[in-house]
């Protein structure tokens, strides 16, 4: 089966998921230009798209339908990456939202921690990679730690801002209803801060992907980043590119999931009319 014949449905279905891409035509044109240019130049490092997609299918999707087409290579390298991503991102979300609410609600803590958080946020986490390697060794724990640390700050700061930014009228109205603390938390505070929390989580998922790959490029014995370096060493550039395509698809998938969740959970937020800014 030729790679080109398959590449098209894969590309289109991937795009159908990604809402960020404005025009299918532009992408199709780009792929055609890439194909033609790559064939003309004949570079080893930038193979034609058809070869890349061929490698993509062979590498990741060559297994039987019973295992959902996911190849042993997929299980060897993609699954560990996804597990690290999930653990790091999950830990960052739990910690970030929890701490963010705590310091958002408790003013003295907010005043105390705010400068610390802004400082922590401005340190590029990638610079901490060598330290993390020394601390954890070449373990998954190191990758998870780095992902969690990088994702923590945007979630934390957004949650904090979200809690602090809840409309005073909303808070006063809630007070007049004499809600229990628990109900106030679940029905007023959390939903009120949720647009900001989701904004933070959305920024962080991109950071998580980047940190996952980077930490695996330098220190891992399995994973997508590890796969990319090993293919580079083996001069298997179509395979290398196929991993990059897979990363791009993961990015699109995560964004689509967020778009979907926000569409459902934050429908009210997009619909609240801006004319509510009247003050007294």
């Amino acid at each position, binding site marked *: 089966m030729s790679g080109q014949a398959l590449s098209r449905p894969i590309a289109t279905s991937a795009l159908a998921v990604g809402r960020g891409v404005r025009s299918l035509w532009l992408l199709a044109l780009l792929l055609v230009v890439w194909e033609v240019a790559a064939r003309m130049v004949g570079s080893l490092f930038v193979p034609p798209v058809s070869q890349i997609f061929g490698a993509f299918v062979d590498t990741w999707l060559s297994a039987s339908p019973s295992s959902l087409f996911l190849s042993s290579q997929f299980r060897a390298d993609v699954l560990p990456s996804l597990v690290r991503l999930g653990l790091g991102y999950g830990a960052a979300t739990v910690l970030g939202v929890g701490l963010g609410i705590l310091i958002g609600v408790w003013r003295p803590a907010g005043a105390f921690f705010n400068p610390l958080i802004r400082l922590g946020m401005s340190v590029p986490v990638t610079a901490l990679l060598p330290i993390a390697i020394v601390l954890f060794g070449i373990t998954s724990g190191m990758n998870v730690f780095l992902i969690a640390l990088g994702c923590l700050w945007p979630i934390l700061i957004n949650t904090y801002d979200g809690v602090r930014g809840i409309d005073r*009228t909303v808070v006063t*109205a809630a007070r007049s*209803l004499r809600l229990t603390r628990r109900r106030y938390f679940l029905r007023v505070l959390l939903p009120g801060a949720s647009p900001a929390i989701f904004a933070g989580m959305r920024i962080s998922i991109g950071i998580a992907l980047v940190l996952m790959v980077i930490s695996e490029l330098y220190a891992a014995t399995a994973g997508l980043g590890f796969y990319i370096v090993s293919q580079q060493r083996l001069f298997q550039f179509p395979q290398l590119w196929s991993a990059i395509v897979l990363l791009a698809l993961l990015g699109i998938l995560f964004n689509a999931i967020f778009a979907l969740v926000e569409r459902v959970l934050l429908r*009210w937020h997009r619909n*609240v009319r801006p004319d*509510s800014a009247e003050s*007294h």
Partner: protein
Amino acid sequence: MNPVTTRPQQPGAALDTAVLDVQQLSKSYRSRKGDVPAVRSIEFAVHAGQFVSVVGPSGCGKTTLMMCIAGLLPISGGAVMFRGERMSGPRDGVAVVFQDYSRSLFPWLTVEKNVALPLRDRGLPRAEIRQRVQESLEMVGLAHAAGLHPWQLSGGMQQRVAIARGLAVRPEMLIMDEPFASVDAQTRASLEDLLLKVWAETGTTVLFVTHDIDEAVYLSDRVVVLSQGPSVVVADLPVTLDRPRDQIATKQTPLFGELREHVYSLVMASQRRTSLSGEPS
């Protein structure tokens, strides 16, 4: 005949039966330049089942006063007595409808859930909650909108939801802060009539804050007139217009005209006084 003296309401005589008794209430806001007084020394009482309006020029401290009475702002001096007990915070039996309806409803909850919210954690059975929500929404004519979100409704409808939420707790007193200030004239008239209907049906006491003199006179049993801020009570007038009232007929009566003129002149006089005494406006 002077309408002010037609039916003198002696506050002192009926003080013991007052639902709400505001005694020498003062409130200052803290600022960098020191304490800024917003209301100076407010004194009035509201009796069970009465509809009392508080009018005053814009910025005179009406919202401040209302928040203090509702226990939502700490007071600086005096006392707010509710059923003979000193108010020290929001309490059961008092419901508030805010000036800014679009922000006092929770946009992430449906109309139904907004109205049900104050009924939760009160030990009420689910069926009772559902029935009270239904009942309050029917009273404001919004039973059909139960499943919608506030942002799917017009301004007038949103304010009716806020009223329904206030009614759902079956309050002894409903405090409303310029609830109809930001809807158009027709909606406003129909909301006024709706409020009068609900008031007659439920028998709840209403404290209605507004800067609109016509509205105050049209709705109320009594109008409390505040001066320019920091405000004091400049007059406490009984309104002896017949009930049920009618937007056209009531407003055409000579008594209505006299009352509104009287209130108007009091508000204007208080404004002149403060500007003559050199206070910043």
